[in-house]
């Protein structure tokens, strides 16, 4: 049994999360509480890029 997932859609959502995080930081006017929490969230998003997006680049190439 294979887990059901849509690799393309996952990659897109991760990129959206990354963009949203950067945009939130940009509109927060340097509020430290936002800035530092975004840094933490961004590290988690980066881990998902390593987990999902890097693999997708390889798995979807040539499909």
């Amino acid at each position, binding site marked *: *049994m294979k887990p059901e997932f849509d*690799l393309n859609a996952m990659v897109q959502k991760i990129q959206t999360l990354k963009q949203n995080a950067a945009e939130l930081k940009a509109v927060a006017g340097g509020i430290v509480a936002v800035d530092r929490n975004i840094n933490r969230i961004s*590290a988690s998003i*980066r*881990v998902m890029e390593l987990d999902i997006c890097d*693999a997708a680049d*390889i798995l979807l190439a040539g499909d």
Partner: protein
Amino acid sequence: MDPSVYWNPILETMPREKLQALQLKKFKRIFTWAYDNSPFYRRLYRDAGIEPGDIKTFADIRKVPKIEKSMMREIQGPGKNNYPYGDILCVPKTDVCSYRQTSGTTGQPVYQADSWQDWEWGIEAYSHALWAQTYRNTDRMLLPFGYNIFVAFWAAHYAAEKLGVEVVPGGVLNTEARILKMQELEANAMAATVSYVLNMGRVAREKMGIDPAKDLNIQKITVAGEPGGSIPATRQRMEELWGAKVYDQCGSTEIGHWGWECHHQAGLHVNEAFFLFEIEDLETGEIITEPGKKGRLVATALDRTAQPCIRFDAKDIIQWNAEPCACGRSFWRLDGGIIGRADDITKVKGVLWAPSAVEEVVRGFAQLSDEYQIILSKKGDADQIELKVELMPGYENNEADVRHALLAKLRLQTNLNYLLDFKTYGDLPRFEGKGKRFQDLRHN
């Protein structure tokens, strides 16, 4: 295969040729990153005449210079750039949020910087291990280690939290207090060094009248830091003492948490999605790609960015097992885990010899305690191996029989003779961290 057995089925069941393509892509990325951001790596690579565009194949990777601990000692420390990390550092010091260091048993410690990004990556790597070893949010795990400057089980703590495991930090407690806390909270899991798992079990039984297998609820134990987790006789001792499943795990300060056994307990899987592992022939230095041949590990952390670890000579002796594991993971395994340290594997009377071979024999004798000490020395021109062991209580009158059988078994397993010294039970040192049981005095 049930997908819930995997932390990340996408990476863990990737076809091998895709996994290798992923490794190559990541190697190019970390190489370029280090070249662009670390003066240390740039110097090293320029001197070797290699730059980022040159890496196109695995054969090109093998031309990249290796690094080792002694090089870190040259660039780190007082008076050097980016104190204490040196100019290996690839990020501003304001991005460093975590300090760890090696124990420095072989010289000045190596200082290791982590950004929060790298810390998250390290926790993710450890999460693979714990998930594969059946840790879930129904578990309560006690971590009996000194939470300090050494990386030890810090990532186990954070990874367990990430999995939803309830974590009990057993930091500044002594052994008895840790055992009582384990009992009070009915903790069902723990992680510790092999030496300490054995030591704790004996303290519980012999000093506290608590039988870990019957009176405690520990059902799974993750061990690291010493080869014993993959030495069958040592694993059997731990499992019988605690009435628990024991899983081996390995990693290092510089590389990260790179290997772990799955619930089949069938050898360490190596995380080939996060790391590149190369095995070098001990004599020729050629890369070994076929199973069953021992060599030394050269490891690359493919995603660690603040203080990258690229082609690090880990001095661990390992060998490949390419047989598919029943768990269905694509990640290859190591036969016998970390077989030993390159520094400890030595020629005795012309025979290649490792202390772990002696451990396997000693711990196979129920009449002997968990502890032993090995001292290599010279008598005239000849090598001499002194082995100190202890008889378990109740076997004091069996010394002659045990001596005869032990010498025969050691000769069979290692082709060498030993000078045996039987000590009283409790005389040899016990350990809370990694055990120190081997000394080579021949070159002193």
